């Protein structure tokens, strides 16, 4: 049996699944239920200074749904905790005392002055919690007041606040990053420079879910007005994975512990974050959509996967795929793939044909000898993967890599088996001459 226990910046937990700072960790009642269900840790709902903030009394959440109402993406305009600081800290203390094997991390957000951070850190240390996470990500409401994403969008502030925190607490400091920036490496580098022990990402993405077309108001709205929210859930996973991967492979931040967050719904999603460098993962929306019980499926799936692959611990595959992320210019232009349709699986829906015909390379037949038949024309196919993406049948269309010696009938070029990328390509006006052997 794979060992799922996790140590992240010195914080131990029975599995690498923490609940992200959000409604699932709003108070002792929720967190205890989560721990009973088996969650490895919880980043408490972000706390701030008193008096506590207030929330709107209308819709805070809304969702992007599939036709059968599965939640694909999720949006919120909730602020940080709306309960007094002391209530939160007392509960945190009690929960940590009652659940010593679980990770309890305090998420913090106060104005950008050293005094404010010093004071709250002192209070937090008294709870006996395992670490702090600096919320530099909340993209709505708090950012208008100079906190949350307003800090996370300015690398200098990140570095400054991280440094204060490192100075004023012994606890591990995790900096939670906002995705609402152009290049996530800059805030990550700043966190590192400030001495942060780790980064966690992503927080939510600025979003407007829609417009009520009858009332002509943005949706959801509170009494006729709405405010952009933060987008999360399954739909944001690719964005989060990219950001995690960027930090994992950046020369300056390489090796910094990463807590992966964003759209994690299944064990597979979690494993992907870990493979791209995350040391552990945090989950919010999936728990909000299905309840805490999903932790059983997350741990069971991850454990079975690890057993099958022979990984004894999460650390054994952490970051294993990072080096496969490359710049485009490093991709092998001599490698050629072609789509192949498995005729036994094909149900003849014709979608591969029409998308390739209308929008790609006219490489799939609709009829052969007068009969409805879908087949790839190798001499046209560029291996773009569009047909694979739209085919409704799993594994019905696959891409096959041509082997050295085979001829690409589209270009007439024989596959050399040699690696060559854009930097040396004849069409590249800036090409470097390949080094002669």
């Amino acid at each position, binding site marked *: 049996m794979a060992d799922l226990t996790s140590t992240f910046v010195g914080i131990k937990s029975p599995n690498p699944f923490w609940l992200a700072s959000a409604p699932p960790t709003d108070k002792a009642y929720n967190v205890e239920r989560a721990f009973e269900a088996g969650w490895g840790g919880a980043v408490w709902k972000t706390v701030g200074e008193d008096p506590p903030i207030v929330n709107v009394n209308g819709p805070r959440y809304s969702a992007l749904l*599939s*036709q*059968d109402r599965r939640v694909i993406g999720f949006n919120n305009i909730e602020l940080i905790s709306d309960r007094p600081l002391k209530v939160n800290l007392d509960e945190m203390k009690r929960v940590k005392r009652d659940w010593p094997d679980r990770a309890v991390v305090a998420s913090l957000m106060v104005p950008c002055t050293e005094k404010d951070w010093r004071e709250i850190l002192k209070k937090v240390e008294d709870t006996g919690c395992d670490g702090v996470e600096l919320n530099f990500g909340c993209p709505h409401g708090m950012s208008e007041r100079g906190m949350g994403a307003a800090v996370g969008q300015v690398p200098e502030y990140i570095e400054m606040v991280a440094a204060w925190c490192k100075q004023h607490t012994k606890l591990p400091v995790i900096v939670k990053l906002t995705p609402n920036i152009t290049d996530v490496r800059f805030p990550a580098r700043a966190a590192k420079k400030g001495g942060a022990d780790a980064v966690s990402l992503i927080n939510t993405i600025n979003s407007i879910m829609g417009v009520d077309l009858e009332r002509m108001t943005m949706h959801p709205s509170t009494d006729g007005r709405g405010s952009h929210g933060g987008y999360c859930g399954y739909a944001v996973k690719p964005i989060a994975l990219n950001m995690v991967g960027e930090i994992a492979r950046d020369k300056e931040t390489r090796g910094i512990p990463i807590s992966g967050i964003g759209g994690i719904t299944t064990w597979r999603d979690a494993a992907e974050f870990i493979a791209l460098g995350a040391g552990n993962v945090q989950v919010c929306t999936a728990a909000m959509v299905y309840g805490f019980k999903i932790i059983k499926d997350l741990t069971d799936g991850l454990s079975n996967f690890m057993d099958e692959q022979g990984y004894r611990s999460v650390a054994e595959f952490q970051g294993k795929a990072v080096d496969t992320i490359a710049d485009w210019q490093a991709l092998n232009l001599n490698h050629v793939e072609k789509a192949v349709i498995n005729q036994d699986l094909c*149900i*003849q*829906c*014709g*979608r591969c*044909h*029409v998308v390739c015909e209308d929008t790609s390379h006219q490489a799939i037949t*609709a009829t052969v000898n007068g009969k*409805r038949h879908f087949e790839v024309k190798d001499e046209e196919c560029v291996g773009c993967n569009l047909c694979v993406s739209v085919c*409704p*049948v799993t594994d019905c269309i696959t891409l096959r890599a041509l082997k050295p010696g085979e001829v690409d009938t589209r270009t007439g070029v024989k596959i050399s088996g040699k690696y060559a990328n854009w930097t040396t390509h004849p069409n590249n006006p800036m090409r470097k001459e390949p080094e002669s052997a």
Partner: protein
Amino acid sequence: MSDTSDGIRAGRLAPEEYARNFSDSHAPLQRVQALIEADRCYYCYDAPCINACPTGIDIPTFIQRIAQDNIRGAARAILEENILGGMCARVCPTEVLCEQACVRNTNEDKPVEIGLLQRFATDGYFAKPGAPLFSRAAKTGRRFAAVGAGPAGLSFAHRLAMLGHDVVVFDANPKAGGLNEYGLATYKTVEGFAQKEIDWLLSIGGIEVRCNQALGRDVVLSDLVRDYDGVFLGMGLAGVNALGVTEPQAAGLRDAVRFIAELRQASDFSKVPIGRKVVVIGGGMTAVDAAVQSKKLGAEDVTIVYRRGEEAMSASGYEQDWAKRSGVTIKHWAAPKEVVAEGGQVRGMRFATTRVDNGKLVETGETFVVPADMVFKAIGQSYEPAPAGASIKLNGGRIVTDAEGRTSHAKVWAGGDCTYGGRDLTVEAVEHGKRAAISADKALRQAARETRNG
């Protein structure tokens, strides 16, 4: 309460049982169900279901529009190809039409429920029609005649009205609709849907329906040909095939189609008399409908007897199952031999068992009697050629047409059940009417062009 005494009597059931038995046999989809089902459609390219629909409705398009909450658009996609798309959604044997071709069958044996979705879209539209979906082209001043206000004749008339022509439809019956009104099973078309649909169809204008006007009695074809720019024959099948055995004058021996027509016209099902034991002879949709509706009227034992095996029945597998689920017994391999009557009342039916010998159906020599108070003949209807007269060429007893619906007479088109080579379905009748209208319009324009140029 249910009255199981012998003989033919009305009121065998309690009022609420009639109400239940004659309600919608297949519940319509609720909005949530429709959205989920719509999501199952793959939006196929050159979709096989479209090719399997006799009227060629763009099925993926209308389903996509349901998914996008555009019910009016969905209804338009349906009705522009099939003006009786609402009725067809209820009565089409989709299991042998569009749904049989759905690519979802391959992996799941469960096609997209096209029929139910079509009903969802059309019902939704009819509940809130808004501005008319179809309008008429500029008036041409041309006039066509249609004989028969069944699905074929109505479809013909509507298409020509759209194209700017005027149409007069003659029908022998007191009400328009043909078998939509007098034939289809009650539980497939509840709440007066047939007439509501016809009222909507006629609302386009330019169509005049003249009821109680029979060709051959009140009007003659030669006059129509003279007075109108073209004539369409959509007279259906007015004749009923005989059993081929002596048919005594006995109470309880009836034509299934007449019985069904009466039932459709009944204002109160408890007034419709039915036997305790009923035998239906035949193997098609009419046999199934007569048998199931007998059962629903409170008959205790209902048996369909068909002279060949299950696979030869023209009722689809789904319909045979429906009959069985409704409590009807189906007996195969038995041919009618003798109507057993006593004192002017049917007492049963004697059958000869049959088998296939060298490709021919033969009697084995054995016979048996199924006791019955009522025996329904449902062995097929036939085209009555007399009213149209000898100028219209027939094949196999029905009118011959080309693919456009043209008959042997240059000014006469035909379609629906009265023509040769079809499957005798509502949806086909609609398609025939539509094609004939397009053809007739084209012929008119061509003639006009020739006179101009000539």
